[in-house]
């Protein structure tokens, strides 16, 4: 979403779904995995909205939807392409919105070639490096920047230096070449039309294993429920992201929502449904290798790597990223305090440099290769929860030391004596060098702190009781570990110790355990001005070192010295926007890009969809929400050519984070695998790509090595050895790898056993009996599960072939109140090239009746499987 709109967060909030006229839930089983949020979908349905569920399985979400469309796992881009095709061919786009608020009218360069011209590739492909260079994707006579945090990966994967930009080219706030009639053959709208010409209902139905009429019905429902008077929303979760084409799938939805004018408006938007209490928060304040807080990129190893170079190459000159200098300098002031001065580039040189992909799967490879020696595993259970969990266990068995912090002894702490590899004899306890520290963690009821939920809302939870025994918060752990390390560094010689020594690391300590004050940390995240007063919003940030701010997008969460995230004015006493319940980033805005809820002149598109509008009397924007726009910038404000930062954004351009203020139908920068989504088969698929001779995403990240072999696909020889589609998912009663549910008696009782869902047809074919055992295997592993025969899973006709699938919930492991094999052992580590997320939906497998081999027989069994697939230890 960052690439299309400018920010990597849900554009709307859950309660607003009640105002949708049509909700498409795709890549998500919302009723089972976000049951309480789903009440807002039900509210909308009660008011007459259509609720459409597009999903391979018939789930409880499908049961209450007004329409369920089954499609093949991994074929989402084709299905979304079918909807886009329908909108364009029938001229159903919301013309006034599209012309003014998106880059539909922008003229592209002559040398841009589409994937339709080059059989699945765009111009700029380099087969030798398996990546793209991006010049040809740019606007004519203007180079754009991707939204920050996503731009650096470019240069990494394509192995080209970041290019310098020419955004000064904006003429009075508009890209230099546009055709507002949308007729020019080089304009984005016409490029889009040609790109999607082949995604007809018939073709899409053939790829997805569905009926052409379903494609038409869903597209028509969306078109009929979009425009001035009506709005439609999309909800998705990890069944969209966990693919080698995850980012491009979300791009598909973004294109639809921009064409139909549904972004920034009530009842519209794209709601990313995240699975963990603070998963949004952990990307905003990122424990991610490529980001600093607030989506500021981590600096790269370059020849010219001073602060000025960084701001020059990472900050756009126009749009809100034009203030990159203020964000990074304020961050450095928060971290290095008085040590950070203008003279020393505010200690910018003290930050480490990245050079390539350092994501978690890369770290696992580093452990296997002996390069990564120490590992902190904090509230996470990769021995069960990560793709190819067997490889993770082998990796952890090759460490020097490991710290695991959790409520109980999870599989990632116990692998050295009870991993499945110990049972098979492949690992021996006495031969595992890993020194393990298992440390008890405090629960959320035992500490103060804030979670950022799926709608960018920071909500404070208060400590109710003290943790028992040695249990401590992670805040305590890192604060005291940092204190110790700083004491040691002050006394002994260490390489490059300044960053540690200079760090501001003084937080008030509370109680017997000397717990650091979480509110003081939140206040640092919010930031303060030169007089030490808490800042009220990010517009107050300065680049001269007079302000400090730990995360610029969170600036304002401690406004007026009040912990805004702890606000709890009851919802019943407020409008549905509930602006006084907790605090949302940015600047407490609940629907972002909400300038788009008014027409170019600033008037609401309709009385029914009124949200934020221009009020001439007060000379500013007003409405139900905080305007996501400069409050006093007139709708007809025309920037001077050469204007900088937000001053360069025209009064009618709502996407203020983008260089040009427009929603990007076509992404000229910030994405590595193409400016438009292209249909590729999953990395492992029983089907040959019906559209292009390029089978799978050519940019996907692979890790070919022993224990991570890939099942062959049809274009390879022996592509039929794994004939069935495999996908994994979650159950209402469990939570990911089970650390917070297999330890809970009531939840374990409700879902005690690992099972596989198969259709009656597949059951008959393979002699599977409901309630009996089956073993499921891939090139990586074999697991056993109870058989659940159900007609909720249907075989599909794809390219004239009947395709069966096996569905597996992935919550089990060797420990806890209920145990079972881990479905994640079956998966391969193959990743989306933009965000390095693994493919867990739509791989291949085989299934046979009976229990799996045990102990030393397992390696022999798998070797035989690999030999049949002619893998011989290679991919």
């Amino acid at each position, binding site marked *: 979403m960052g690439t299309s709109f400018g920010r990597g967060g849900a554009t709307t909030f859950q309660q607003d779904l009640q105002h949708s006229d049509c909700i498409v839930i795709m890549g998500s089983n919302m009723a089972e995995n976000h049951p309480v949020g789903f009440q807002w979908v039900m509210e909308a349905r009660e008011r007459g909205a259509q609720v459409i569920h597009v999903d391979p399985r018939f789930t409880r979400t499908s049961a209450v939807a007004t329409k369920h469309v089954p499609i093949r796992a991994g074929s989402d881009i084709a299905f979304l392409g079918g909807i886009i095709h329908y909108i364009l061919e029938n001229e159903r786009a919301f013309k006034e919105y599209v012309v003014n608020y998106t880059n539909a009218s922008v003229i592209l360069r002559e040398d841009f070639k589409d994937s339709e011209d080059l059989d699945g590739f765009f111009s700029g492909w380099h087969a030798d490096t398996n990546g793209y260079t991006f010049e040809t994707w740019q606007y004519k006579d203007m180079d754009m920047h991707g939204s920050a945090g996503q731009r650096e990966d470019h240069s990494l994967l394509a192995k080209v230096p970041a290019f310098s930009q020419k955004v000064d080219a904006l003429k009075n706030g508009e890209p230099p070449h546009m055709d507002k009639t949308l007729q020019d053959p080089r304009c984005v709208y016409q490029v889009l039309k040609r790109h999607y010409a082949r995604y007809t209902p018939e073709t899409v139905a053939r790829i997805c294993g569905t009926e052409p009429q379903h494609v038409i019905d869903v597209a028509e429902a969306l078109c009929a429920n979009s425009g001035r008077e009506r709005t439609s929303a999309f909800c998705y979760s990890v069944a969209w992201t966990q693919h080698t084409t995850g980012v491009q799938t979300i791009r598909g939805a973004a294109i639809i929502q921009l064409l139909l004018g549904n972004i920034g408006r009530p009842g519209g938007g794209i709601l990313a449904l995240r699975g963990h209490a603070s*998963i949004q928060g952990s990307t905003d304040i990122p424990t991610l290798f490529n980001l600093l807080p607030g989506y500021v990129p981590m600096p790269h190893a370059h020849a010219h790597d001073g602060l000025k170079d960084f701001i020059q190459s990472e900050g756009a000159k126009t749009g809100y990223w034009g203030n990159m200098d203020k964000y990074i300098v304020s961050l450095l002031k928060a971290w290095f305090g008085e040590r950070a001065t203008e003279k020393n580039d505010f200690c910018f040189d003290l930050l480490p440099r990245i050079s390539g992909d350092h994501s978690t799967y890369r770290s696992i490879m580093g452990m296997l290769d002996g390069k990564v020696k120490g*590992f902190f595993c904090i509230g996470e259970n990769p021995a069960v929860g990560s793709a190819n969990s067997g490889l993770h266990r082998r990796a952890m068995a090759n460490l020097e030391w490991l710290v695991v912090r959790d409520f109980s002894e999870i599989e990632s702490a116990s692998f050295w004596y009870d991993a499945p590899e110990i049972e098979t004899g492949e690992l021996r306890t006495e031969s595992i060098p890993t020194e393990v520290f298992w440390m008890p963690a405090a629960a959320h009821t035992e500490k103060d702190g804030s979670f950022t939920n799926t709608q960018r809302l920071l909500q404070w939870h*208060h400590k109710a009781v003290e943790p028992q025994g040695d249990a401590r918060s992670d805040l305590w752990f890192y604060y005291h570990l940092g204190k110790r390390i700083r004491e040691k560094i002050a006394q002994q010689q260490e390489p490059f110790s300044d960053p540690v020594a200079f760090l501001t690391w003084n937080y008030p300590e509370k109680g017997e355990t000397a717990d650091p004050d979480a509110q003081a940390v939140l206040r640092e995240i919010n930031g303060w001005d030169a007089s030490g007063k808490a800042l009220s919003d990010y517009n107050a940030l300065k680049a001269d070192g007079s302000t400090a701010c730990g995360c610029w997008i969170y600036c304002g969460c401690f406004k007026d010295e009040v912990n805004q995230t702890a606000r709890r004015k009851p919802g019943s006493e407020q409008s549905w926007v509930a602006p006084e319940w907790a605090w949302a980033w940015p600047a407490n805005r609940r629907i972002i890009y909400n300038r788009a809820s008014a027409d170019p002149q600033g008037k609401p598109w309709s009385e029914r969809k009124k949200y934020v509008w221009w009020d001439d009397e007060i000379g500013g924007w007003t409405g139900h929400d905080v305007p996501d726009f400069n409050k006093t910038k007139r709708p007809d404000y025309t920037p001077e050519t050469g204007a900088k930062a937000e001053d360069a954004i025209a009064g009618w351009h709502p996407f203020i984070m983008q260089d040009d203020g427009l929603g990007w139908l076509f992404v000229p920068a910030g994405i590595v695998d193409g400016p438009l989504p292209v249909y590729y088969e999953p990395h492992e698929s029983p089907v040959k790509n019906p559209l292009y001779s390029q089978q799978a995403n050519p940019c996907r990240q692979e890790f070919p090595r022993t224990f991570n072999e890939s099942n062959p696909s049809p274009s390879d020889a022996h592509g039929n050895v794994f004939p069935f589609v495999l996908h994994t998912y979650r159950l209402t009663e469990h*939570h990911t790898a089970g650390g917070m549910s297999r330890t809970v008696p009531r939840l374990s009782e409700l879902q005690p056993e690992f099972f596989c869902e198969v259709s009656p047809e597949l059951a008959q074919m393979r002699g599977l009996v409901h309630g009996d055992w089956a073993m499921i295997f891939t090139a990586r592993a074999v697991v056993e599960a109870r058989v659940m025969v159900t007609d909720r899973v249907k075989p599909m006709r794809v390219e004239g072939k009947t395709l069966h699938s096996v569905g597996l919930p992935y919550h089990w492991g060797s420990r*806890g109140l209920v145990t079972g094999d881990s479905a994640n052992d079956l998966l391969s580590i193959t990743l989306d090239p933009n965000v390095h997320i693994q493919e867990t939906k739509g791989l291949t497998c085989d299934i046979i009746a009976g229990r799996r081999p045990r102990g030393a027989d397992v390696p022999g069994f798998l070797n035989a499987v690999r030999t049949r697939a002619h893998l011989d230890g290679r991919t």
Partner: protein
Amino acid sequence: MNDRALWPVLRQAGGKDPLALGAAAKSQKTADWKARINDAKVVKSICPYCAVGCGQKVFVKDEKIVQIEGDPDSPISRGRLCPKGSATLSLVQSPLREYNVKYRRPYGTRWEDLPLERAMEMIADRVLKTRRETWEAKDEEGNTLNRCYGIAHLGGATLDNEENYLMKKIYTALGVVQVENQARL
């Protein structure tokens, strides 16, 4: 409260509640019963499972949590909790929770006890040792790296923002770049 003095059967036969589903079935004893959350302190919280962000009310009596319920004030959840959220009390009081540090030495075959302070000291030493041993000052082309490549971190996404912030801050200062979380998964 006059009718409380009578026998229940008389209240049922003679009163306005012939089915004994209301007033007739009540007695002084039932009137004296109190909910276990009565007199408990209410602490406002947020559900730790998924990212819907339901409001929770944590009831505390004698420094012990006695109940966790949905918070009707929350505009998102309006008092509701799902099966996981409803089981939060069982989560924080799980029979499998442990409260003491455990240590497995290299090539060891069993867990050993280790005082918390000692564990903290040992971990700090391990961090500095690995940092020293795997320090990368420059790459092959002479570009500055200033990082420690031998340490990696993987965190869950039920951690607080404040915790993530301190982690990122100290790791970055130490030069640890392989800092990752569940959001990647």
